[in-house]
């Protein structure tokens, strides 16, 4: 009543709900990427040649329609946009919630954990930061080659095996993937609710299962490789 429909639209595009939609879509894009990335990583079990070929193949994907590395760049751009959008929205929403609810809003020390909150929902923001830091480290190592724990190698496979032979590198990955796992346990379900999928009790049950499965698959799927290297299954 107070606003005309046009301006209501425009305002709604900047609303918290719209920001959540951005988080959800960007988050799901990242989930998709991670699933593919994980699948690619598992090629490590097929040996150096297969892995390096796969890595190379990524760069040829879409040729000759696309220029060399075209598909990879498309993926990178989409991913980068998703990451930026995701972090941008996360920061705005988090800041808003700190003003709306305050950080230590109640004096009492009782029941600080809430009533039914999952641990996953608690660690969403802190976990997100952990993931972000990890990705910087990860890229520095495997994409930009700025750092070379465990020694350098011209082949991606070689770099990977060298890196995972170092215990603290694996430890870093474990921390990061636990963070990812928790983030997705809440994140996937949350994204689906945000996109309007949870309108019945049954749908919600399905969504919870989907989110648990996704987070387990991704966490375990990724961690197999570093542990296999550390334990000598992959050399």
């Amino acid at each position, binding site marked *: 009543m107070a606003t005309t429909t046009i301006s*209501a*639209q425009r305002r709604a595009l900047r609303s918290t709900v719209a920001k959540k939609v951005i988080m959800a879509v960007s988050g799901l894009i990242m989930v998709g990427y991670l699933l593919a990335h994980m699948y690619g990583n598992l090629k490590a079990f097929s040996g150096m040649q297969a892995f390096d070929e796969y890595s190379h193949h990524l760069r040829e994907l879409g040729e000759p329609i696309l220029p060399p590395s075209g598909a990879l760049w498309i993926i990178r751009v989409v991913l980068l946009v998703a990451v930026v959008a995701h972090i941008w929205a996360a920061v705005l929403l988090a800041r808003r919630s700190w003003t709306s609810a305050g950080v230590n809003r*109640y004096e009492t020390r009782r*029941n600080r954990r809430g009533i039914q909150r999952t641990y996953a929902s608690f660690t969403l923001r802190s976990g997100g930061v952990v993931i972000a830091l990890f990705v910087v480290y990860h890229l520095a190592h495997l994409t930009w080659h700025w750092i070379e724990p465990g020694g350098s190698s011209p082949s991606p496979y070689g770099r990977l095996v060298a890196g995972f032979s170092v215990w603290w590198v694996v430890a870093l990955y474990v921390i990061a993937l636990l963070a990812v796992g928790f983030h997705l346990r809440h994140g996937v379900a949350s994204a689906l609710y945000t996109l*309007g999928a949870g309108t019945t009790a049954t749908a919600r049950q399905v969504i919870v299962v989907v989110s648990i499965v996704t987070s387990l698959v991704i966490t375990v799927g990724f961690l197999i490789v570093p542990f296999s290297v550390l334990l000598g299954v992959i050399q």
Partner: protein
Amino acid sequence: MNITLRVWRQAGPDVEGHMETIEVPDVSEHMSFLEMIDVVNDRLTLEGKEPIAIDSDCREGICGTCGVMINRQAHGPVRATVCQLHMRSFTDGETIDVEPWRADAFPVVKDLVVDRSAFDRIIAAGGYISAPTGSAPEAHSTPVKKADADHAFDAATCIACGACVAACPNGSAMLFTAAKVTHLGLLPQGQPERGSRVLNMINQHDEEGFGGCTNIGECTAVCPKGIPFDTISQLNRDMLGALLRGE
């Protein structure tokens, strides 16, 4: 039974508040929580002190007036309003911490009383069906599927108590807003304004300073009327639809 109350005292909106400890002997387990406070207040009055300001009206769990944080649970340990909470839910010798709802959009008025008028403004922004008096068609001209009517009713039972906001880690009023969007959106009468309703209500929700929902679900766990979580998804869906259709 005997209990110790730690209760938030704040003389006015712009004054610092603090927790005050009050010993309360001889509490009957059949008393409601508010009746226990009544007794405390009578005593404080006779001792020449200011009684604790706390709001209640119907005392039967339907008006939504009462509502405080008890041991950091909205409405206390039982999933019902404070007026329906009885002392039998506590143990002898227990210390009970009582605080007002806290949210930026709910400023404290005094002690345990907060200002929830933001809720009214969210409803005013679109939480209605425009049906001018006297213009209504015969009631039976629009049948409504029983399932839809029941579901709409479930959502319509919200009492605007504000527990959802008080419990939400983001200080979001999404459950409250979603309950009304769902109630009206499920009925045939509510269709014409469905899109504009959700947009306007969400805009108002944000303008009031409530946080964004991140689907944490604390709200539904404390809602005394059991407003289901589905409503939030329904709101999101309606909102997306309205944005995509350009309503």
